[in-house]
């Protein structure tokens, strides 16, 4: 779990953990908008209640009685990294199609009922999970549960339904990726950073594979992955576990458990070569530089570094007082923005990313050299006790702010469970962060900042447009 505060680190490229909201795209802000503040180190974060249904569906309840409202989410433990090679985008395509009809509900009826009950809904797909959610007055929760349970197993797909939606998905890809030089470069970076792990493929998929996807491909994927034993129910807001349990049993508990599901993914082999990806694009007016080091997550690789790396990114590139911002932007006046990003909340290997955008007249190699000097300094001298104390205080404060909006808790816990963490892991985050030492941070930096484990990307203007 990581709590981000929106701070001055301009021109940050989308981190690898970015996800797609197939419907209207308004939700992405939710997760990133977390502001967090200083809590005593032993405080829990969300204090949820949990239980498991007989069919294996996990349930999480986060009570918050500010308004008579609930957020109802169902998370499936399947994302784009679970797709087979050659079928990129299928998890996301299916997510769009989940808003069509079922055996007993016409296409569009789901959204119509949500709206008529004053609810708001959306869904999103990531590398590791797919989630559907509605926020609605508490009295309508039961209706949402009935409909969400229905589409877990009863979705009806025909070519007439799929074809227009295929075009919608292709427009989404054009909007998010093809129209956006930085996103195009991002695809190439991922393809280079992961030699074998499926995070190398874009969540939204390649256009030619979206075009070629058949109804059978999608239906097979749905039947394989969508089952109660592969799903998590998260309800936050004006409700308790005691109140929810009978409803969860009534609507979700009656769905038969599916076959056991294994999330088998190819592993990442050793990396032996530093890679460089350079793109010139006619649309670019503000150049940028970034480097991604492959890094352990909470669940993959040398997981013992995951907490120290979070404090490291806070110190190195976490905002307007970070080392990178102070050095490159304030003191040396080389860049307009600089920072770093690391999030351990993924099932597979994640990345530690550092980025900078030069001021006019400064070249990308100049920026790169300045960043490299900061990396070298941390590897040689480590970080100071004072820096560690300040960073930890800020991060722990974040855990208090995270409680302010109840959707934050639902998002954080749902994502954590979907990648394979436990509720206790999330709740113990403040304690673990509080225990991180300067020595651990130095060791983590030495472990991660290995050039041959990295991709360096250059984005510049192409001044000679060609057809």
């Amino acid at each position: 779990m990581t709590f981000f505060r929106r701070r001055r680190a301009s021109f940050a490229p989308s981190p690898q953990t970015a996800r797609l909201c197939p419907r209207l795209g308004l939700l992405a802000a939710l997760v990133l908008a977390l502001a967090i503040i200083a809590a005593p180190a032993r405080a829990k974060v969300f204090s949820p209640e949990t239980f498991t249904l007989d069919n294996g569906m996990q349930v999480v309840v986060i009570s918050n009685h500010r308004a008579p409202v609930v957020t109802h989410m169902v998370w499936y433990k399947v994302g784009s990294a679970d797709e087979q090679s050659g079928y990129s985008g299928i998890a996301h395509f299916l997510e769009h199609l989940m808003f069509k009809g079922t055996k007993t509900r016409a296409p569009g009826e789901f959204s119509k009922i949500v709206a008529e009950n004053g609810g708001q809904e959306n869904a999103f797909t990531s590398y590791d999970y797919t989630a559907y959610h509605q926020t609605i007055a508490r009295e309508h929760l039961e209706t949402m549960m009935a409909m969400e349970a229905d589409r877990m197993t009863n979705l009806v797909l025909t070519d007439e339904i799929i074809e227009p939606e295929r075009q919608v998905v292709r427009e989404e890809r054009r909007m998010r990726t093809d129209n956006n030089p930085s996103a195009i470069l991002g695809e190439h970076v991922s393809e280079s950073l992961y030699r074998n792990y499926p995070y190398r493929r874009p969540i939204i998929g390649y256009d030619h594979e979206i075009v070629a996807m058949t109804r059978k491909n999608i239906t097979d994927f749905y039947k394989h992955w969508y089952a109660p034993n592969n799903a998590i129910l998260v309800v936050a807001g004006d409700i308790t576990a005691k109140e929810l349990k009978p409803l969860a049993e009534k609507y979700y508990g009656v769905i038969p458990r599916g076959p056991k599901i294994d999330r088998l993914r190819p592993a990442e082999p050793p990396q032996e070569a530093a890679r460089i990806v350079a793109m010139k694009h006619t649309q670019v007016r503000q150049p940028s530089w970034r480097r991604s080091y492959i890094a352990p997550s909470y669940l993959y690789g040398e997981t013992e570094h995951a907490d120290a790396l979070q404090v490291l990114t806070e110190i190195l590139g976490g905002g307007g007082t970070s080392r990178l911002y102070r050095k490159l932007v304030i003191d040396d006046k080389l860049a307009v923005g600089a920072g770093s990003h690391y999030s351990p909340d993924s099932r597979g290997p994640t990345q530690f990313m550092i980025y900078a955008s030069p001021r006019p007249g400064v070249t990308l190699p100049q920026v790169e050299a300045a960043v490299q000097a900061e990396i070298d300094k941390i590897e040689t001298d480590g970080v100071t006790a004072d820096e560690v104390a300040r960073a930890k205080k800020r991060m722990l404060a974040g855990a208090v702010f995270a409680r302010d909006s109840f959707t934050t808790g639902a998002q954080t816990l749902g994502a954590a469970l979907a990648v394979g963490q436990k509720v206790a892991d999330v709740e113990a985050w403040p304690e673990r962060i509080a225990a991180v030492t300067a020595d651990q941070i130095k060791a983590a930096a030495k472990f991660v900042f290995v050039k041959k484990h990295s991709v360096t990307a250059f984005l510049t203007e192409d001044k000679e447009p060609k057809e």
Partner: protein
Amino acid sequence: MIRALALSLLLAFTVLSAGPAQATKIEKVVSPGGIEAWLVQDHLNPIVSMRLAWRGGGALDPEGKDGLANMVSSLLDEGAGDLDSKTFQQTLEDNSITLRFDAGRDTFGARVQALTDYRDLAFNLLRQAMTKPRFDAEPVERLRAQILAGLRHESEQADAVAGKALMAALYPDDPYGRPTRGTVDTVAKLTVDDLRGFVKRRLARDTLFIGIVGAITPEELAPLLDKTFGGLPAQAAPWKLPEVGPDAKARTVVIDKPIRQSNILFADKGVMRHDPDFYPAYVMNHILGGGGFTSRLYSEVREKRGLAYSVYTYLSPMDRSAVYVGGAGTANARVAETIKVVRDEWTKMAENGVTDAELTAAKKYLTGSFPLRFTSTERIASMLVGMQMDDLGIDYLDKRNGYIEAVGPDDIRRVARKLLHADRLTFVVVGQPEGVTAKP
């Protein structure tokens, strides 16, 4: 500091706030010194969230100094009083205080959020930022460089380019037509005297509105208001700008950009917030292209034809004018078809209005979803300020759903006929659309 670069829509939604009356009690707090704030106590977490807004934003920037309000907003948290930029920022970060300023067309605002333990410190930093900003050379030049980089980045983005072009077309002779963040030329020339002049003229008590939500009582708040805002001048420099209609006429602006998907915006005259037709227009917009996955445009453009991922309309009332805006993104080859569908839906609504079933469903959504706006202290604080600025009354939360319920099918028919003229729409297309010709 530079905020997120998601500039997308040219105009911020006017907040149509309101809330579940049973859960939200608004208290009007007036300090001994006469400073008023609206407060919702919320002791769930040890957090205080405050929203401030002054009347008068980027649209008051003098000609040739476009982007002044925006540049000031980026610099007020970059050093004040005895604290230089680094110390000021370090103090904010060390104590997990959020303090950010922002500039819109008609408003200049600030957000403050802090844990209770650091509340007084946060208010003290806010006071210094408003009354004693330093504008030291280093942060001024650094932020200027960031703003210029932001403008360069915007020029890469089809939606930002389209938004600016639309406002320029609709308001050729009014500040509303000029970009709030300025241009490369104007931002390069802004001086520290300009920045200081803005603070002196704009940040006063008589144009300020305050909303606070969180773990604080009226007794604690009242003296804090005097301490924090008492040092501001009593009155802002007066200004007089006339109401202005958008130059609404049939036109198509095409801006060539070598991209695969064209960004389309369309607009016409809208409805002012205090116009009696506002609520009928609000309900009509919901049915035509407003929120959710159930509007007519969503169904016709996206669901049936797969023409776009994103298609929407919204009402954008400003202080002195109002526009009705919509947008969509579609492959270059399908722009002409998308425009035709939009025009057809415009005509259909203008001629036939809405069905009873549509109206009932829209009202159920708009009234039923009202409580969803009350889910974080920050959101509620913003609503408190919106209610004050739009003069909606402190009992607005109780009345708002009644305004929606009162809208009848004849109201919508009347407003649709008044607002929707398919042959008068301005279209802006950024991309390489096929089958679309520019028409001035």
